[in-house]
């Protein structure tokens, strides 16, 4: 049976999935990724690059669609925000050339680039920025990422080149969030963004054949460095074999190949490069503390101790062990893998103390987009410590309604793919998490910290709390694996910031 790499399978963030995800140089990944090295030879500026992806966006209206798939296509490529992030999550200027933060951290003043233009040549005006951001923070906003900018109370423009954001309180995550889907600048009173995304980036949208492909073409009027290829086609190949055949026969130049056995067939082949990178795909075994035995921290800890994460990584062929929802590349990462290490005997003791020495039955709900082996592995591991698990495989929307919205579950496994999502888990009404005032205070301290050091300290504390309180078990951090045709370079190999930067992709003249 084939197993897809988790990284390639999905994101809780939407139906989206980090299919094509990733970036250059993967410091956290294994190897620097064949993708990032420059060709050194002569690049072909008229080339078309075809990228095999797995999950298609459900809509291209970035102001309305959830999930990371739409952002990977459009963010930074077609749309820009005031600021942008690179594949490592580092923030730098985009539509704003400079910004100033007031000492109390509550006023952000952005100076706009004076040569930025939408794709028909209309200049980007301060009014476009004000209307874009105001729509997101409006009380009746349907932007699914509105909470990213919740700290903003007002957006104004004192003159044509300046935009001022006024905050309710300090927000240490604001700059990063402005680089995300909530921060994109669309034309004032723009309509029909689904059919015709209209941005300011190095590519312009060309066409979308639903169920098949999305095509972008180079924006030759882009104010910055021009893209190095004329066209990029994202082809959606959900089926593992179809993706593999497309790579092998040259129908796509870069493809997501996650299956271990399939990846091995490309290694050592002089025509292909295998690129591995790190992701933010946190495969999370969530515990429902609101009902039944999982309200008892001893039961939750027992389950964590009962699952050998290294064994699962071996079964799936790739992945990194993490002890909290923080991936190693985040500034507030701390190695917490020693908390509740694999210890079946200890797990049985904890269960006995909690009064479940005679055994325990729990339900496990998993969306059917993930490989069945994950649920099978967890089930067989927990059987060893006397916990009988009944697996329910459901479609993703059924998971969203049943588990995410109605909290009708004991255990659940999904991939939390979003970057820097630590604060999600203190939200009241989230489907699992830490609802204690202490956790909320830590999250708040992190969000409103005056310095990076303070922020990192608070968020490190929060992650440790999550882990010690066993709000969930983090099974593994997915790996992104792509196979590219030799001669194609500059594609992202890591997938840590929900963007897929196309601007550096090059194709060698053949």
């Amino acid at each position: 049976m084939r197993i897809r790499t988790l990284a390639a399978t999905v994101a809780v963030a939407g139906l989206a999935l980090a299919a094509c995800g990733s970036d250059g140089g993967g410091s956290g990944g294994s190897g620097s990724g064949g993708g990032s090295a420059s060709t050194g030879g002569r690049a072909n500026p008229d080339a078309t690059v075809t990228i095999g992806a797995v999950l298609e966006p459900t809509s291209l209206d970035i102001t309305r669609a959830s999930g990371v798939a739409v952002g990977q296509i459009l963010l930074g490529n077609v749309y820009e925000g005031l600021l942008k992030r690179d594949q490592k999550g580092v923030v730098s200027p985009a539509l704003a050339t400079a910004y100033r933060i007031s000492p109390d951290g509550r006023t952000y003043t952005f100076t706009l680039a004076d040569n930025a233009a939408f794709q028909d040549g209309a200049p980007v005006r301060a009014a476009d920025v004000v209307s874009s951001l105001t729509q997101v923070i409006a009380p009746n906003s349907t932007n699914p990422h509105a909470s990213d900018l919740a700290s903003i109370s007002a957006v104004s423009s004192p003159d044509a080149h300046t935009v001022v954001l006024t905050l309710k309180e300090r927000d240490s995550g604001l700059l990063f969030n402005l680089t995300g889907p909530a921060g994109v600048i669309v034309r004032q009173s723009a309509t029909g963004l689904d059919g015709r995304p209209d941005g300011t980036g190095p590519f312009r949208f060309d066409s979308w054949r639903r169920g098949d492909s999305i095509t972008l073409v180079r924006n030759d009027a882009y104010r910055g460095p021009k893209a190095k290829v004329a066209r990029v086609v994202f082809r959606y190949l959900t089926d593992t074999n179809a993706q593999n055949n497309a790579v092998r026969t040259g129908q796509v130049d870069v493809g997501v190949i996650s299956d271990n056995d399939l990846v091995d067939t490309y290694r050592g082949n002089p025509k292909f490069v295998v690129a591995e990178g790190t992701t933010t795909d946190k495969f999370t075994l969530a515990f429902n503390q609101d009902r039944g035995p999982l309200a008892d921290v001893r039961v939750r800890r027992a389950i964590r101790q009962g699952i050998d994460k290294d064994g699962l990584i071996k079964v799936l062929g790739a992945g990194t062990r993490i002890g909290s929802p923080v991936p190693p590349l985040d500034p507030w990462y701390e190695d917490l893998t020693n908390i509740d290490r694999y210890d079946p005997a200890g797990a049985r003791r904890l269960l006995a103390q909690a009064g479940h020495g005679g055994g325990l039955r729990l339900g496990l709900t998993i969306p059917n987009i993930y490989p069945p082996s994950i649920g099978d592995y967890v089930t067989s591991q927990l059987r060893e410590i006397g916990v009988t698990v009944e697996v329910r495989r459901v479609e993703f929307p059924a998971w969203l309604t049943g588990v995410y919205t109605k909290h009708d579950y004991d255990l659940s496994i999904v991939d939390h793919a979003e970057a820097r999502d630590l604060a999600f888990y203190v939200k009241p009404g989230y489907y699992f998490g830490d609802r204690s005032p202490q956790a909320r205070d830590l999250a708040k301290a992190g969000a409103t910290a005056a310095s990076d050091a303070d922020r990192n300290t608070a968020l490190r504390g929060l992650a440790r709390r999550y882990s010690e309180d066993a709000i969930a078990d983090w099974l593994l951090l997915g790996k992104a694996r792509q196979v590219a045709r030799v001669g194609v370079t500059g594609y992202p190999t890591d997938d840590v910031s929900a963007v897929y930067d196309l601007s550096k992709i090059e194709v060698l003249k053949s």
Partner: protein
Amino acid sequence: MAVIILRRLGLLVVSLFVASLLVFALLRLLPGDVADVLAGTSASPDQVLRIRHEIGADRSLPAQYLDWMGGVLTGDFGVSALSGASVSAELSEKLRVTAPLVGGATLLALAVAVPLGILAAARHRRASGVALSALSQLGLAVPAFWIGLMLITVFAVDWRLLPAGGFPTDGWADPVAAARSLVLPAVTLAVVEAAVLLRFVRSATLEVLNADFIRTARAKGLTRGQALRRHGLRNAALPVVSILGVEFATLLLGAVIVENVFALPGLGQMLVADIGNRDLVKVQGTVLLVTAAVLVVGFGVDLANRLLDPRLRSAR
């Protein structure tokens, strides 16, 4: 005859109406909600309510049904809740892949099954006839997706003769490229179909061969072949045409699998994706269209049988 056609047409309309009700109601039983899908995992519960209102999913079910049917009667299948795109436009785009695929597979299957089926019947006591029979059994037993994978491995990956999957992004702008990408999928669909048809053609022909009127024809001095051609085939065609109507539904179902194996952007692939996203307006439009196609084909088969067989023309 005219009365019968009118009566059949009336039945067709009633069936379509009942089908639309069933499709609409059954889809509402699926767990999961498109508003939750749209909102994803970072939106607040208030936002989900607003989204539900915006796409009209908070209206009563009868109101939603009437609204949908009202549109369908004027050829407007509504818009996708997820992307806001017109369902009619997408259906016609996908049909440009699925219709040639299913049509091509049917012709291919007929071209293989009819001559071989007759041959298998004519030689049913000889080794070649038995071999053909066994071959059709094998064709029935092998799943379509496996045949597809094998064809890809041989013709696309090893020999590089045909594309491994997909459809040109500019559609039929280049007819040769588009047709090439449909060859392997159509063959895959046709293999199973041909196996089914071959068995029906064979048994229908065998039955005719043993019929009294063939014996009479032979007694008049015709050879077996002459008797079969002049009197037999028309009679043998009846059950084959009927089964072709039934098999049309099977072919459409097969297209769902084959389109996924070959990454073809057709109706079947879209249907699977839409169900996965709970985009019910699109799903019900697609299912209704397919149901209508099957019912219309059934109607056509009925008429064809009456034309082929004068005895049926006066029957009720």
